[in-house]
C-alpha cells in the first residue's frame, strides 16, 4: 500500500473540485473494495477523497419512482421499507451479495464501481490489461472458470461482480452523476461497458464525475420477479451465473419482460431481443428456453468455463419460472425454489 493524501469534502461540488483532473485521485466511501486493491498494490492513489460526509444518504420518492443516494449503504437500501415493498428485486439482489458486515459498509455508488474479481487483476505478478494496459490477459488460457462467456474481447475476459447492478439493469435504473460540466443522467445499460480494446475502463463515467444517486423508474415488478444466484458455495461468493428476472403478466401471457445476467460479462448482461421474444408469449418453459437460447446464442467459452453457458441457460429458465410463478428465490433459505 502506497502513501497518499487524504481530504474530506463536505459538498458534492467540493468533491468534484477535489478530484479535478487528477488521475491519481480516488473517491472513497465504504472502501470495501478500494482498500483491498490498495493493499494488493493494484490501486495506488495519490490522494483519497473521503466522500462519506456528502449529503447523499437519502432514499426519496422521485417521479413515481425512487431515488437512492449514492452513499446509501447496501444494507440500508436492501432493508428500506419502500425498496422492499416496491422493488423487492433490488432488495433481493443486494442481499444475495457479500456479507452483512460488507453490506453495512458498502455504498450504492461504490457497489456500481467495484472492480472485477479476476484473479489476474488482483495479482501484480501477472499480466492484466485492465490493471496494466498492454501487458496482456493472464486469464485467457489460464485459470478462468469464473470468467466471461458473453461480450468478452481478446484483451479481457473479466466479469463485473456486482449483484445489485444486475437488478438495476433489469429495473432500467438511471445513474445520476455530477461533474465539472454539471449533472447528467446515464441509463444503467450505458453505465458499464464492454472491455473491447480498452478494458482498463469499466464504466462510461467521464473524468472528474461522481455518482450522486441511482433512480428507480416507476415500474416496480413487485409481484413477478426473482434474483437467482449460482455460486461456488451457498453464500459469500461471487456469482458464477446470476439472473434477475422481472415480468408483468396478463393471466398466463407475458406483457413485459426484463432479464439481466450477472457473472457472465464485463457488465450486467441484458438482451432486449430476448425480452422482446418473451413479450406476448405464454409464460411457460418452452418460451423461457427460447429466450435463454437467444441470450446465449453468441456465448463463447474460455478454456475452463464452458459449463457456464449451459448453466446460464438453465438459470434463465429457472429464474423466469420463479418470476412467473411469483415464487422469488429466497436469499436466506438456500434451497433453490
Amino acid at each position, binding site marked *: 500500500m502506497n502513501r497518499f493524501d487524504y481530504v474530506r469534502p463536505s459538498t458534492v461540488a467540493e468533491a468534484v473540485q477535489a478530484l479535478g483532473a487528477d488521475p491519481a485521485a480516488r473517491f472513497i466511501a465504504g472502501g470495501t473494495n478500494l482498500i483491498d486493491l490498495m493493499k494488493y498494490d493494484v490501486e495506488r492513489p495519490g490522494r483519497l477523497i473521503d466522500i462519506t460526509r456528502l449529503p447523499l444518504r437519502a432514499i426519496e420518492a422521485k417521479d413515481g419512482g425512487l431515488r437512492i443516494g449514492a452513499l446509501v449503504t447496501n444494507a440500508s437500501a436492501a432493508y428500506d421499507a419502500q425498496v422492499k415493498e416496491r422493488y423487492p428485486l433490488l432488495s433481493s439482489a443486494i442481499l444475495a451479495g457479500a456479507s452483512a458486515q460488507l453490506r453495512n459498509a458498502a455504498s450504492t455508488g461504490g457497489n456500481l464501481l467495484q472492480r472485477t474479481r479476476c484473479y489476474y487483476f488482483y495479482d501484480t505478478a501477472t499480466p492484466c490489461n485492465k490493471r496494466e494496459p498492454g501487458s496482456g490477459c*493472464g486469464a485467457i488460457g489460464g*485459470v478462468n472458470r469464473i470468467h466471461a462467456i458473453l461480450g468478452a474481447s481478446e484483451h479481457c475476459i473479466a466479469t463485473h461482480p456486482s449483484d445489485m447492478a444486475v437488478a438495476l439493469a433489469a429495473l432500467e435504473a438511471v445513474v445520476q452523476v455530477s461533474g465539472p460540466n454539471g449533472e447528467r443522467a446515464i441509463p444503467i445499460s450505458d453505465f458499464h461497458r464492454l472491455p473491447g480494446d480498452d478494458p482498463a475502463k469499466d464504466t462510461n463515467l467521464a473524468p472528474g464525475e461522481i455518482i450522486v444517486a441511482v433512480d428507480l423508474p416507476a415500474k416496480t415488478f413487485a409481484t413477478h420477479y426473482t434474483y437467482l444466484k*449460482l455460486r461456488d458455495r451457498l453464500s459469500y461468493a461471487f456469482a458464477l451465473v446470476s439472473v434477475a428476472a422481472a415480468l408483468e403478466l396478463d393471466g398466463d401471457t407475458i406483457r413485459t419482460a426484463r432479464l439481466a445476467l450477472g457473472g457472465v460479462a464485463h457488465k450486467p448482461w441484458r438482451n432486449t431481443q430476448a425480452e422482446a421474444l418473451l413479450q406476448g408469449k405464454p409464460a411457460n418453459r418452452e418460451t423461457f428456453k427460447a429466450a435463454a437460447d437467444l441470450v446465449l446464442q453468441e456465448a463463447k467459452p474460455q478454456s475452463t468455463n464452458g*459449463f457456464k453457458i449451459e448453466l446460464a441457460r438453465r438459470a434463465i429458465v429457472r429464474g423466469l419460472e420463479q418470476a412467473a410463478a411469483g415464487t422469488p428465490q429466497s436469499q436466506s433459505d*438456500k*434451497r*433453490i425454489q
Partner: protein
Amino acid sequence: MTVQFSPAAGRDRFVGQAISRVDGPAKVTGLAKYAGEFAAPDLAYGVVVSSAIAKGRIKRIDAAAAEAVPGIVKVITHENRPATSQKPEDYQDAVAPPGAPFQALASDRIVYSGQPIALVVGEDFETARYAASLVRVEYETAAPLTDVTAQSGASYDPPMKRAGIKPPPEPWGDAAHAFDTSEIRVNAQYRMADEHHNPMEPHASTVVVEKDGTYTVYDKIQGVSNTHDYIAGAFGLKPEQVRVLNPYLGGGFGSGLRPQYQLFLAMLAAKDLGRSVRVTLTRDQMWSFTYRSEAIQTVALGADPSGKLTALKHDAVQGTSTYEDYQEVIVNWSGVLYDCDNVALTYSLTKLDTPTPGDMRAPGAVTGVFAIETAMDELAHATGQDPVQLRLKNYTEGDQTEDKPFGSKELKEAFRQGAERFGWDKRQPEPRSMRDGRELVGWGMATGIWESMMMQSSARAVLGADGRLEVGNQTGDIGTGTYTILTQIAADTLGLPLDHVTTKLGDTKLAQAPVAGGSWTAASSGTAVMKACRDIAEQAFKLARGMDNSPLANVDFERAVFTGGRIEVAGDPSKGVALTDILKATGTERLEATAEAAPDKDFEEAYNAYTHSAIFAEVKIDEELGVLRCTRVVSAIAAGRILNPKTARSQILGGIVMGIGSALHEESMLDHRIGRFMNHNLGEYHVPVHADIHDIDVIFVDEEDKANPLGVKGLGEIGIVGVAAAISNAVFHATGKRIRHLPITIDKIVAEG
C-alpha cells in the same frame, strides 16, 4: 483397564465432564496474545517481498527506492544476506521430510512462485509495506512444472523415507491376478485438489533481542521445541541463548508444525540489526510455503458377488517440491481397513516447482480414505449391497499390513449407533430414488480412520503452599483444548478444584514435549501430567503420614483419596488432612515433580492402534442447476476415552466442517503456465460459510483402550477423515452420477455423463 485419576478413589470429578475451555475467557477478551502481537521496545517490522515467478533466477534486484524511504532500516536480499549455517542438516526440523530444507534469500535461484526474495525492515509496518512495493526485480524465467498429472509419469519411490511415516507394506497374495479373475471389479481414478491450511491467524514471528544478547522468540508454531532447535542450528546459537514461546495458536492444521520462512527472516534481521523484529505474513503468502498436495489415486477392487473382497490395489502419485521428498501415508489405510487376501499398495512422488507440501489435518488419510471409501461405495452399488453391510462383510479385527490385532476397535458399534441416529434403515438403495420436492436426496456413508499415536513427552507439576498447582510442558494448544484437558487431569489426580490448577504450555522453559500434531497430544502430554501429579500426590501422602497425629498414619497410599484439596481415607472422609496443612506443618514451600511418559513398548509390540469413525451424510441437490446442500452429517467416533465431551465434540465438528470444505469447496487453482496458485485469498479460495453447514451430530461410542494409562486415542484428525467420501457417496445416491474429483462444484454436477 484404564486408570482413574484420583489415586485409589475412583471418582473423577472433571475428567469426562463437558468443561468449558479454561483459556476461553482469555481468547474472547483479547488477553490471549499470539505470535504477531507481542510488544518489544524498539520493535522493527519486516515485510516479505515474494517472487513473481516460479522457476529461474533473479537477474537484478534493485532495493534503492525502498531503502530511500524514510523509516526504512534495511532491505535484506540474497545479495547482502548475513551468513547462517552452511550445513543443510542445521535446517532440518523435527518433522522435516528428507531433503534440503528451503532457506530464504540463500541465492538468486527461484524454486517456486511466491518464494521470499527480500525482507524490507522498517520502523513501522506501514512504511515497510510501502517500501516493499518499491523493490524492483528482474528475473530470468524458466518454464515451471507444476502439473501433477503431467509429471505423474516421472514418479519415483522416495529413496529416503520420512521419519514416522510408514511406507506402503509389502504386497500380500497376488492382487493383480486376483483382480483379473474377480467376478466383480471396480477400478477408477480419484482426484482431489491442492488445498491450503488457511488458519485464521497469519504466520508471524516476533524475535525480541534481550539486553543480555539472548533471544526471546514468539513464533506461530505447534511446538516451541521445533522452533528452538531450528533457530539454534541455523544461526549457530547455544540452546540457552534462545527461548521460544507460543502460548496460543490461532489454528494450525499442520501449517505450524515446521518453522516457516517468516521465522528465519525475523531472526536473520534481528541478529543482523541487533534489534527486535517482527515479521507477519499476509493471507496471500499463506500460498507460499505449505499445502496439501494433490495425489492421483487409482483403486482397483475385486470381489465375489456377495461383496467379499478378493483383491485390493491402491496406488497414489503425489506431488512434492524439487528440494524435499515430502511423504504421507495415503494408501496404507486401505490395507488396514479391510480384510482381503490379495493386496498391493503403492505410493510414489513426483517433483513439482512448488513449495514443499506439508501435513494438513489428517495428512494422507483425508486423501487416501476418500479414494478407498468411494471405491467401496462403488463396490456396494456393483454388488447390490448396503454400504454398511459391505463394510461389515469385509471387517477386520486385525491390521493386515503388520499382522497385528487392534488394541481396540469399536467401529462396528460406531456403524450401529451412527446408522441408528441417522435413520439409515429408511434409505432406499436405488440412486435417484429419494426426493424432497424438487431436490434429489442422497444418503451416503463412509468409514474414517486415523492412527492413534503417543510421543515421548514430559511434564512438570508444582504444588504451592497455597494449595495451587501449576502444570505444563512445551507442547502447544493448537485450539484443540489441551489447556483444558491437562487442567482436568491434574485437578482430578490431586483432587483439587479446577480453579486451583493452572496449565502452562508453549514455552521452552517448560518441560520437554514435542510439537502438537498427529492427534498424539492428549495421550502424550496427558499421561505425563498425570504422572507428575501422581508423583506429587505420593510426596504429599508421605509427608502427611509423617505429621504428628496424622490421620493417615496407618493408611496405605492405595486407600488415600485426594479430593477437595485434601487427602482422606477411603470410606472415612472424616479422617483427612488438607494439602495446604501438610505443606505448612512440614515446612514445605512447594512440592515439585517432573515426569516422563513414553509409549508402552509391550503394547506397541502386541497391537496396532487406530481411531475409527462412521460418517453418514445427507445431500439435497437441485440437479438442473447443480446446487448442492449438505443438510445432515452424523459422525460416530470410536476413539477411546473422551476426556472432555465438549472440547472433543468441537474437534469433531471442526473436522467435519473442514471435510465438507474438502468435499465441496477447497481448491487452490494453479496456472501451470506460470506455476502460480491464482486464487490466493479467502474471497476466491472457498471454505464453508455458515450457509453451507447444517445439522452435524457427533456420537462418541464407548471404547476401552490400553495403549496408555488414560485410555485416550486422540481426536484432532479423525473428524475430517472420510467426510468427503460420505458426501461424494451421497451425491452418487442422489444423482446416480459418480464424481471422483473433489471438490464437487456446480460444474461437475451439471456436467454431462
